[in-house]
């Protein structure tokens, strides 16, 4: 397809559309009383973020966002919420939205707004340029868009990648060991 005059408008429209949906969903996520409904709004936020990644031509990151966060982590999250039976708003007791909790939340919100303001006003001293050799948005001939990510990961940074995976494996095994009840039916 040839680029045409409507392309910037198209990108801008969708950027604002998905940003607005993401922010609205995030607000709904923190204000819902039912944990399951809150979790579903968080899933919606994940989706909007994935859409923003696609607008940045980072389709791989978008797919991973949906696959890992919306498809795996949130499902497990939902699973736990359902098993804990935190189901219905009427069953929930007192929350932290009183006295000190409110004060602390207000303070944190002020800090974040201040941070945003500083970031917005700060001049950018360095130039954001992509490395000349290979950029993620330029698919190389053999691997497609994935090749641009897989190449550096499994060639230049192989050691770091392997170390990270060993660390994750250790964390999984640690969780299983800690989670096993001593003396229960599952104990050895």
């Amino acid at each position, binding site marked *: *397809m*040839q680029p*045409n005059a409507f392309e910037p408008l198209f990108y801008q429209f969708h950027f604002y559309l998905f940003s607005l949906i993401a922010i609205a969903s995030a607000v709904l996520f923190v204000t819902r009383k*039912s944990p*399951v*409904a809150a979790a*579903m709004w968080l*899933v919606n936020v994940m989706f909007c973020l994935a859409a923003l990644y696609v607008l940045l031509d980072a*389709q*791989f990151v*978008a*797919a*991973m966002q*949906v*696959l890992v966060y*919306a*498809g*795996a982590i949130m*499902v*497990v999250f*939902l*699973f736990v919420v*359902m*098993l804990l039976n935190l*189901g*219905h708003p009427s069953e929930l007791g007192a929350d932290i939205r009183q006295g000190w909790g409110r004060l602390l939340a207000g303070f944190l919100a002020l800090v974040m707004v201040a941070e945003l303001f500083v970031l917005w006003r700060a001049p950018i001293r360095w130039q954001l340029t992509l490395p000349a050799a290979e950029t993620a948005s330029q*698919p190389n001939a*053999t*691997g*497609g*868009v*994935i*090749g641009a990510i897989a190449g550096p990961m499994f060639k230049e940074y192989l050691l770091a990648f392997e170390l990270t995976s060993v660390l994750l494996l250790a964390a999984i095994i640690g969780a299983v060991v800690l989670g096993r009840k001593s003396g229960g039916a599952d104990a050895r």
Partner: protein
Amino acid sequence: MILPTPMLLQVADPTVAASTGVFLIATVVKMLAIFTLYMVGVAYTTLAERKISAWIQDRHGPNRVGPWGLLQVAADGVKNIMKEETFPGDVYKPLFLIAPALAFVPAMITWAVIPFAAPWGSPWGRIDMVVADLPIGFLFTLAISSLGVYGITLAGWSSNNKYALLGGLRASAQMISYEIAMGMSTVAVLLLSGNVHMSQIIDQQVATNWNVILLSVAFLLFLVSSFAETNRVPFDLPEAESELIAGYHSEYSAMKFSMFPIAEYANIITASGLMITLFFGGWDIPFTSWDNVGPHTGLKSAITFAFFLLKVVAFVFFFIWIRWTLPRFRYDQLMALGWKIMLPIALLYIVVIASAILALDATGLSRGTVAYQGALFAVNLVLLVLIVFVLDRGRLISPAYSRLERERVARLRLMAQQSDLATSRES
């Protein structure tokens, strides 16, 4: 008689991409066509299920509405829409309402990236016969299919019914477990094709051979996990009637209930499409290269599309056939199969196939040669034999002939013989 149109089609260069306007129009047309065909396909799969089950059980099946019962689908639709909708008092309404849609939509979206015919070199430029030609195609299908669990889980939870909740929990545990095996089994396909672009996975199979031959074990794993992902027998534990009434959709009625079977059949068709694309060469016609070389006429696209449909129908039939043949697993067997057998085999298979590809590439053989494909097939054959004859000798997944069971049968038989002896002595 002179027919100018086919001439034009032959002259058109299939490598010239269509302009933006043509692209947009073509995409809209493809979306409408695929959506219509898909919905009609889902509707008629329900009829096919009833007809084939009747055939397997030596009955007639639905045969009153229209010729050979072909209009039964319309009658069912009207019935489901006209029925009364019930809302149990304590359901969580927002999620109760959207859960049926959430169950159905992911299956449909996956079709956007499945190529269904050879590209058509039209007079207005090349038109790819896929709704959205995403560069991350296969990852997109994985990401979307991981969302299918939401509909069932939320339906179970929002019904506020213990059987529905149990069904929903079973569904989420089952689908997460088999998703892992499914993802792992397809790593081998990606290793061989070196890409996640659906069209290029098909191109690789056209250039060498279908992946079902080169990667048979991966196909077996994918097949089993897609049965589990679609919640079909023998993996339909989330709606096991004898244990859970109707499982996650116990509280649903009318069209909203009907959405769950529709989602199931939609999932079957989508799983068939995925298996065809990954392992059966997509729209490729076997034993001929006529469809893979230019000129890319509209006729060629139509015929490859027909072949694609034929493969889909064959797989849908296979899904139905299995349902009316096998009994249901027990829940512990299901989990053991997923985690203790499928996942280790899938992991091991990745290592084996990666080494095999590395070794074969090192020998300098071209991938198109018979020797290369034969060697890969031999590796798969050995592994399949190992899996079937060494791993499963009534030890792991066979429900009726486990070792304990066999001893019990022997003991019972002995008791029967003794009582026979006793009665014969008396008489």
